[in-house]
């Protein structure tokens, strides 16, 4: 027994002296970047193998795109711009308002209208003025090729009015012309909205679930027993989540472009701009996820709390319908939500082909949301 002890001790000393040099070599080599990337890789692998992430990020948006892509416009209303003039209370305008189908857009300059027409944001423009030396009115209508179907509806409405016996004496003539604009398809509205929603659910649900479950299953505790920094854990997760969201976004955009004719004005550059916006969006939405993972007591609390965050934005942020279609009192709420601005920026970049600098207002609002959310997240996020 004693002999054994002595031998063992000698062995130990040898081993220990050998190990010393090893540790010193290792000590200086610790790399936070390596740790962060290892986490990002692990997290990414885990995400792509988790069915819920794939369903929320890809399947849901694609289903909605399919449904709306084939469904077409839905409830029809026609946006008609009225050119500014002294006499907006004329009988023609009055009759147009009565049809209930036509939404009059006022208070814009002629130049504004010209742009809106070209994009198809208004379906037609109408100019009513009293003819010189006459009690009758002259009605000048400009349609746009960007919205020919709605223009045609307006045309028939106007024709009906023209033959309306009450109105007929006061209308002298209807002049019609058409400007050429890009065709604004349903997909051009629906796809950016779905993309925004996909980013929202990936950011919120994914982040909340992952951090809650890592905390509850003590995975994070085990991480803390390694030299890894907390920031590496958050950044690693973030990289994986953003990477996954961007792949999802790219997939949706390309599919929409190939199969539904989604408009990408400047092609690849537009796609890159959209991905930049997507990145910003996911980062902001991940903040909600961090907050939820902090306040949820267990996994079954994640979906209800996440829905409180995502559902209002899903419905009110112009995902399916334009915000302008909402009642006036609801619109300020819509305009307070971050997804509204992401959707707005996406549509402008994709369909109007503007650069990121032109959507700086939307980007700024997203930034402000981001700062606010992360300020809260830092307070409520729990590691253990």
């Amino acid at each position, binding site marked *: 027994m004693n002999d054994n002890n002595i031998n*063992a*001790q000698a*062995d*130990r000393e040898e*081993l*220990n002296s*050998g*190990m010393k040099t*090893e*540790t010193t070599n*290792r*000590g200086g*080599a*610790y*790399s936070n970047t*390596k*740790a962060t*990337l*290892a*986490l990002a*890789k*692990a*997290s990414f*692998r*885990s995400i792509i*193998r*988790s069915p819920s992430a794939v369903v929320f990020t890809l399947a849901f948006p694609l289903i909605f795109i399919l449904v709306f892509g084939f469904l077409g416009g839905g409830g029809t209303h026609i946006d008609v711009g009225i050119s500014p003039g002294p006499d907006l209370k004329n009988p023609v305008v009055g009759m147009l308002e009565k049809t209930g189908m036509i939404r009059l857009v006022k208070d814009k300059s002629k130049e504004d209208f010209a742009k809106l027409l070209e994009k198809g944001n208004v379906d037609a423009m109408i100019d009513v003025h009293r003819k010189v030396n006459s009690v009758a009115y002259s009605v000048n209508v400009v349609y746009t090729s960007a919205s020919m179907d709605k223009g045609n509806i307006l045309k028939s409405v106007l024709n009906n009015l023209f033959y309306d016996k009450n109105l007929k004496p006061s209308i002298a003539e209807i002049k019609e012309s058409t400007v050429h604009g890009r065709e604004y398809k349903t997909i051009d509205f629906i796809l950016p909205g779905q993309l925004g929603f996909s980013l929202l659910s990936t950011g919120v649900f994914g982040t909340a679930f992952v951090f809650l*479950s*890592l905390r509850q*299953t*003590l*995975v994070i*505790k*085990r*991480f*803390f*027993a*390694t*030299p*890894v920094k907390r920031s590496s854990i958050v950044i690693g997760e973030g990289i994986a989540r953003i990477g996954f969201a961007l792949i999802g976004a790219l997939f949706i955009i390309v599919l929409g472009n190939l199969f539904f004719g989604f408009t990408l004005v400047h092609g690849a550059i537009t796609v890159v701009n959209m991905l930049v916006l997507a990145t910003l969006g996911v980062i902001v939405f991940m903040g909600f996820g961090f907050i939820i993972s902090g306040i949820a007591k267990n996994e079954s609390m994640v979906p209800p709390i996440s829905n409180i965050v995502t559902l209002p934005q899903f419905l009110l942020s112009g995902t399916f319908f334009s915000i302008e279609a909402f009642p006036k009192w609801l619109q300020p709420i819509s305009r307070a939500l971050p997804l509204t601005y992401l959707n707005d920026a996406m549509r402008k970049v994709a369909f109007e082909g503007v650069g990121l600098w032109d959507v700086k207002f939307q980007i700024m609002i997203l930034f402000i949301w981001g700062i606010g959310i992360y300020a809260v997240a830092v307070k409520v996020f729990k590691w253990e």
Partner: protein
Amino acid sequence: METKKAIISVKNLVKKYDDFVAVQDLSFDVYENEIFGLLGPNGAGKTTTLEIIETLRAKTSGEIIVDGFSVDKHAHEIKQIIGVQLQAAGYYPNLNLIELIELFAGLYGANIKPMEMLEKVNLQDKAKAKYKALSGGQKQRFSIATTLINQPKIIFLDEPTTGLDPQARRNLWDLITEIRSNGTTVVITTHYMDEAEQLCDRVAFVERGQIIALDTPDNLIDKLVSSGFERKKEVKKANLEDVFINLTGKEWRE
């Protein structure tokens, strides 16, 4: 004993949770390359003590030095030279064993071959399996593999054999002994006294946050016997576990 070098030194350690004192004035040394056992009933403060040494938990007062590093100032350095197996730790979801080892290699900044790590704990056949799909014994061996990735000087094993069948337990003892013979110091907690007797060079009994005895298992038993203690029943040359192993074979099953 006095000639041995302490690799962990705990002095007057105190941990309070609000009004509850989990650890009160605990002092002990762990010597280089020994297997040191922390024994005691549930809630005695074993895990709390381990987690404070592992720099996972803050202490209320006291001093702890791990291989020359203080837990107060050099937690990062300590983490690089220790391996930690937690009582109930989980592993990243949806990853297989190889991928988990790769992840930990990144977290420790270690250059290792994942397959070699799995071979060390005899899990090479399970390389593509998920952690969740492993048996109890395999899970513990995998946990131990993750503690070896950074070639630590000390590993901490918190109840590694709880819930294992006799074969798996013996298998794990062999593994722990092997790790020690490769030069690593092992600190272990357990509820099984036969295990402590067989594995540990020295054991400390912890009760209500205090150490009530610390010595080699042999000395502790001798002391008890010399105080006049006698077992109620004459001890037979074998016990029921020997019967179990004899009947079901030593071979370890998955």
